C-alpha cells in the first residue's frame, strides 16, 4: 500500500487545490463604488427598471444611468442611509461619475441588442438578470484574472457558488436554437 501513497497524496492535493482553491484564485474581486439598493429604489421610490435603464431613440440601451439621472433625486441627501450619504458626498456634490463595474458587460466581440430581446422577444429583465432588481446590496464585481470576463450576469448569490463562468455562449445559443434564430456567428458577434 505504501507504493500507492505518494500517488494518492499528489492526487488529493491537486483535487483540493483544483476544486477549492482554484475557483477562488481565478477571480479578482472589486467592490462597486456605491452600495446601491435596487430594492429601495423599486419599493420606496416605486420605480420600474426602464425608468433608469432606458433605451435611446436609435434602439441602443443606455445601461447604467449617468450621474445626472441620480442627481435628479439625490441632489441632497434624502434618506438616512450611510450609503446614500456617501454617494451624495463623494459623487453628486463633486459631480464625479461613479465607476460602476457592469456585471453583464458583454465581451468586445459580442453584439447584444437589448431592444431586440425586450421589445421583439418580449423577455422580461429577470429572465437574464434574475432578481437583481430586488437585491438590497451590490455584490462585488468578479473578474476572471485570465480572460477578463465577468463572473456572472445574474448578480445573485447562488450563481457565485458555481465554478463555471456565467457568461458563456451556450446560454445564448440554447435559447436562440429553441427560437429558430440561430443563423451564423455574426448574428451575435461583431
Amino acid at each position, binding site marked *: 500500500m505504501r507504493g500507492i501513497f505518494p500517488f494518492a497524496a499528489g492526487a488529493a492535493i491537486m483535487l483540493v487545490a483544483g476544486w477549492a482553491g482554484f475557483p477562488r484564485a481565478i477571480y479578482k474581486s472589486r467592490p462597486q463604488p456605491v452600495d446601491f439598493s435596487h430594492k429601495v429604489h423599486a419599493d420606496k421610490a416605486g420605480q420600474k427598471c426602464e425608468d433608469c435603464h432606458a433605451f435611446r431613440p436609435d*434602439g*441602443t440601451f443606455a445601461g447604467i444611468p449617468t450621474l445626472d439621472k441620480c442627481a435628479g433625486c439625490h441632489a441632497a441627501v434624502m434618506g438616512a442611509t450611510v450609503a446614500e450619504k456617501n454617494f451624495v458626498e463623494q459623487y453628486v456634490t463633486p459631480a464625479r461619475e461613479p465607476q460602476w463595474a457592469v456585471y453583464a458587460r458583454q465581451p468586445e466581440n459580442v453584439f447584444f*441588442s437589448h431592444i431586440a430581446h425586450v421589445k421583439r422577444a418580449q423577455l422580461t429583465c429577470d429572465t437574464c438578470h434574475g432578481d437583481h432588481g430586488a437585491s438590497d446590496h451590490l455584490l462585488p464585481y468578479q473578474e476572471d484574472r485570465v480572460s477578463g470576463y465577468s463572473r456572472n450576469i445574474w448578480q445573485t448569490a447562488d450563481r457565485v457558488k458555481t465554478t463555471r463562468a456565467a457568461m458563456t455562449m451556450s446560454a445564448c445559443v440554447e435559447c436562440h436554437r429553441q427560437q429558430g434564430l440561430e*443563423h451564423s456567428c455574426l448574428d451575435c458577434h*461583431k
Partner: protein
Amino acid sequence: MIGPNKQIRAARYGMTIDVDRCTGCGACMVACAVENNVPPAHAGATDRNGITWIRVYKIDNGLPYPETRSAFIPVMCQHCGNETPCVHVCPQQAVDVDPATGVVGEMPQRCLGCRYCMAACPYHARYFNWWDPAWPKGMEKTLNPDVTPRMRGVVEKCNFCHGRWHAAKQQAAAEGKPDTEPVQYLPACAEACPIKAIQFGDLNDPAGAPARAAQSGGSFRLLEKLHTDPKIYYRSKRDWVRASANAPHPFAGQHEAGKENHRG
C-alpha cells in the same frame, strides 16, 4: 449551420460596382478601414501583408503607352454563394454563410490562424493579421465601437459592414418593425464612394438597385468560371475590362511574357 426555421424572408446582400465610374480615389478603402477598425500599416507592412478589406486594383488593357487604358476594380470579399471556397476549408467553423443574409462571415475570435482559407480564396480578399494591431497613440479613441478590433494571428475580411447591419436591425427593432424582413443599410464603402459607383442592397429584391444593375448589360463577376457565384457584380462597357475578370492571361501575347500589373 442551422437554417432558419422561423418564417423570415432571407436576403442576399450584394453589390454592383460600376467600374466605368470608379475613379480609384480610394475613399472606399479608407472608409472601410475607419469603419472596421483596420489599423494603419505597421512599420514594414507592404502591399503584400498590409490589411485592407477592400483593395482597389488598377488594371490596364495591356497595350503599351500611349495606347494604355486603365480602369479601377475594387475587390473585397466576393461573398461567394456556391460551395463557398473558404467555408469548407476552415478546420474549426470560423467561417460560415448566414442563410438569412448570404453574407460570408468570419469570426476572428474563432480563427486559429492556419491561413488555409487564404490559400483557398481566389480573390485574395482575406487578410491575415501579421502584426498586433497598432494605432498611433490616442488614435484608438477613434475606433468604431460596433466592430471589435482583431488580434494578431487571425484572418479577417469584409463582412459587408456587419456592425452597420446590427445597428440597422436594432434601429428596426426600436421602430417596432418585424424582424421577418431584411433591413436596409449601406456598408461604409458604398456610402463613402463619392461617385456612387458602388450600389449595395438585397439581390433577392428585384426592384433593388444592385439587382437591376446586375441584370443590365455589361455586368460581370470575377472568376465566374470557377462557379463560386459571387455576390459582387461589376459593370463595364469596355470589353477588355470584362475580359480581365475571367481570363488568367487576358492579354497574353500582346507584350512580353510575365508582364504584371505593378501598381495594382
